[in-house]
């Protein structure tokens, strides 16, 4: 269910996201590097590893956030699972496909947040699917996805091909 390097990278990205990335926030939005990394790892490793990467990274996000425990874990697990389904189904180029993957993952997350907000009384949450903040986040994730994917490609150990195929 994934390897240690994958989890370490997710942890590093999460810490960077919560300590440094607010400096480049626009309209209150900063990029979601953890989500992008989950997308990459899930696509490379399949649905089993993808959902576990998503679950673990989301759970740690919940620990560091005021969100209820399970909120980000739920979102990232779903994204990890769905992108795991796409594993080795299409060719990923350097720029366009990563951008699309980043945008779609962010939209999925947005829909997931709206779903959870409708289901539970989530205190302190202020999310609007049609807000400028969310649009900027989609844009940020689209722009950064090719760079992050290119960086993650350098870590050969992150894609143990065929390990989870057929599961």
């Amino acid at each position, binding site marked *: 269910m994934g390897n240690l390097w994958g989890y370490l990278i997710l*942890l590093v990205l*999460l*810490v*960077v*996201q*919560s*300590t*440094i990335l*607010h400096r480049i*926030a626009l*309209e*209150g*939005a*900063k990029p*979601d590097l*953890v989500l992008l990394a989950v997308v990459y790892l899930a696509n490379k490793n399949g*649905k*089993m590893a993808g*959902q*576990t990467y998503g*679950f673990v990274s*989301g*759970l*740690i*996000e*919940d*620990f*560091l*956030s*005021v*969100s*209820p*425990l*399970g*909120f*980000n*874990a*739920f979102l990232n*697990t*779903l994204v990890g*699972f769905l992108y795991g389904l796409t594993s080795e189904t299409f060719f990923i180029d350097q720029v366009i496909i990563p951008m699309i993957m980043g945008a779609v993952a962010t939209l999925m997350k947005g829909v997931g*947040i709206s779903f*959870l907000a409708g289901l*539970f*009384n*989530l*205190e*302190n*949450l*202020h*999310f*609007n699917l049609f*807000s400028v*903040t*969310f649009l900027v*986040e989609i844009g940020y994730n689209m722009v950064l996805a090719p760079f992050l994917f290119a960086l993650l490609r350098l870590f050969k150990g992150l894609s143990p091909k065929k390990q989870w195929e057929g*599961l």
Partner: protein
Amino acid sequence: MKGTGFFKKHRVGFLLGSYLAFCLLSISISTKTLILRPKEIGLSVFSLFQSGVGSVQRLFSETIDSVRTLKNLKQDYDQALERLRYYEKAEKQYAALEEENRQLREILQFSHSIPYESIPAQVIGKDPQNYYTTLTINKGSLHGIQKNMPVIAVQGGKQGLVGKVLHTGINASIVQPIYDPTSYVAARLSLSRYEGLVSGSAEEKIYMYYVKRFARMNIQSGELIVTSGLNSIYPPGIPIGVLKAIHAREYDTSLLLELDPIIDFGRLEYVYVLKMQRGNP
């Protein structure tokens, strides 16, 4: 054997179901505000990483600052000499004013009755997601911090309200800033004494709601807005912001005031958590 085969075949589905069930159950428990031990422990453990990165970041920025400081030292020295002469004059005036102030306070029976004991803390991170606006500080229940304690900061010699403690871990806490849309602070205009409720907005602006409409004639831009002390969390008299604009919509029975916060949250590094004896519910 059949059962085992079925489980193996649907292993991914079972695991996904387990993960999602755990998440939903956990959110359900959390939103009913039960005691969140796992969350507190997790906050305490993982905030250590934030603290570590924060330290490295500070090391770099402090080194760069030191070089810059040396460069400007000579210039500052000349300016300091000039200032010294100025302050020698000002000191005499200050002593006279201080005495006058003391006497006036006695006359007005100005009271410092609120027991402010404070815990200094450092901001080590912000919420990883965009949909929560909280800050993480490096002090927790181990240092005496409790939920709902007010948090203030001092910037440029001015004291201002930052927010309140939402969650505490053992060695870290989560603070809700006043620009959070779900934060509400009972406030009043310091001169005209009208009351209202200060809250944030999605654009991270701060507004004062429910100010009586007839106050329009008595208030003007630049007036200081402070906590009124009417709720049980914040002590009275803590500066929140300065009145920036007045919005008087025709269909509204109250005014909407836009504030410039005293604290610049973009460069907030250190805060003080007030150990309020009377505020904790």
